[in-house]
């Protein structure tokens, strides 16, 4: 067999494409769920880390440190294979979503914290002097400014989460990678793997370019 028939076999592409698309759907769903949940949990942890009373602050710091230290693959396997021993049995999708969210939240929390701490103290004082409540100070003054700072690193984190969804294939979740390896076994041909790889790149390349643009734009100080 020649190079094209081996790696870009048209018949294999056609026959495996539905499977790969269903995998892509799951990958996207898992990525979206984990990113959104990770953002919310991460923001909550960041605010806890900065503003809560001391025991909670310490807890938030331990959380971010632990979940940035643990390899995602290890966490995923622990959630999927170890938790059933204490009666907590999660589906492959849930296991992956939980593991990805926990880790993403830790990184997100650090990004938000850096963003909030980059806001000059005078912004807090001006808000307080005007009589704004804590909630309005955060919602109207601090977070909008922090958001500008954190958008490039958060986008970067999204890219990482989507990439890391591929790890979920080890807990038998039918994501893009899993479907590709299955199709490859079925067809006895590596074309599905190549197509899957191209799909990942097609999905993430625009985001990578976006990060670069955002970083440049925010560096210039435009609004």
């Amino acid at each position, binding site marked *: 067999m020649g190079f094209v028939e081996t790696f870009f076999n048209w018949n294999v592409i056609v026959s495996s494409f539905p499977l790969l698309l269903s995998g892509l759907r799951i990958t996207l769903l898992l990525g979206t769920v984990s990113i959104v949940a990770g953002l919310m949990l991460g923001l909550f942890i960041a605010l806890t880390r900065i503003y809560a009373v001391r025991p909670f602050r310490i807890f938030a710091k331990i959380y971010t440190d632990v979940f940035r230290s643990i390899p995602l693959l290890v966490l995923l396997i622990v959630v999927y294979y170890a938790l059933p021993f204490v009666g907590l049995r999660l589906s492959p999708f849930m296991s992956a979503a939980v593991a990805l969210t926990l880790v993403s939240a830790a990184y997100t929390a650090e990004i938000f914290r850096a963003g909030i701490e980059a806001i000059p103290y005078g912004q807090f*004082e*001006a808000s307080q*002097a*005007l*009589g*704004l409540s804590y909630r*309005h100070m955060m919602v109207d003054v601090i977070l909008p400014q922090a958001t500008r700072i954190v958008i490039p690193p958060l986008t970067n984190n999204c890219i990482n989460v989507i990439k890391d969804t591929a790890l979920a294939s080890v807990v038998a979740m039918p994501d893009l990678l899993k479907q590709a390896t299955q199709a490859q076994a079925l067809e006895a041909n590596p074309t599905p793997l190549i197509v899957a790889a191209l799909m990942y790149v097609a999905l993430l390349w625009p985001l990578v370019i976006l990060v670069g643009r955002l970083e440049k734009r925010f560096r210039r100080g435009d*609004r």
Partner: protein
Amino acid sequence: MMPAIVSIKDLYKNFGSFAALAGINLDIAEGEVVCIVGPSGSGKSTLIRCINLLEKYDDPGQVLVDGIHVEKGRRLAAVRAEVGMVFQSFNLFPHMTVRDNIKLAPMRVRGESESDASSMAIELLRKVGIEEQADKYPAQLSGGQQQRVAIARALAMKPRVMLFDEPTSSLDPEMVGEVLDVMKKLAESGVTMIVVTHEMGFARLVADRVIFMDEGRIIESGTPAEIFDNPKEDRTRVFLNAVLEHKQSG
């Protein structure tokens, strides 16, 4: 005497072993314009920052604004709303237009409608002479213009008292005048003002009372004529001589 709008009793503030405030007692009457002068590190800024509790003070000192104790708790934001503050570094909200900077607190704290807040913003901007800048962002304005917006923003809350913390100290010299002019107009319109400043000319012209502070204490207070022309204390005299000489050589 009229009841004090701001009443400060036995105010102490220690940063570690450094006494920033060493027993301040001060009453400010409604409509009064008080200028606080003194060398850097004398506690002037710390003092006015205690009035709206941006700075905590030591027990058992007390600050009353309109009879209400300024302390941590649910009423703090409400008391702060009655105290306008203008900072040395402007502290405008950079992500909002000038108009939105002014509208924010009246809408969020006073519950004013968007249109009321907006028309008040324009009116205030006219008062400080920059209504044509309403839709610009702070970064597009000069320092003097930014500080005038900051004054308008504070006034939008219709505060009972306005605090100015060295409002012209970070301005280029050619912009100091425009800000002082706005403050002078405010003083003439009867706004209660407490101004920490190095602008002796302004203090002399506008203040009802000048307070000289050093080492966390009020050394001397009186009318501008009493303080500037006939200071009783040596420390006041030394300070004023240094400031005035500097002005002449600079």
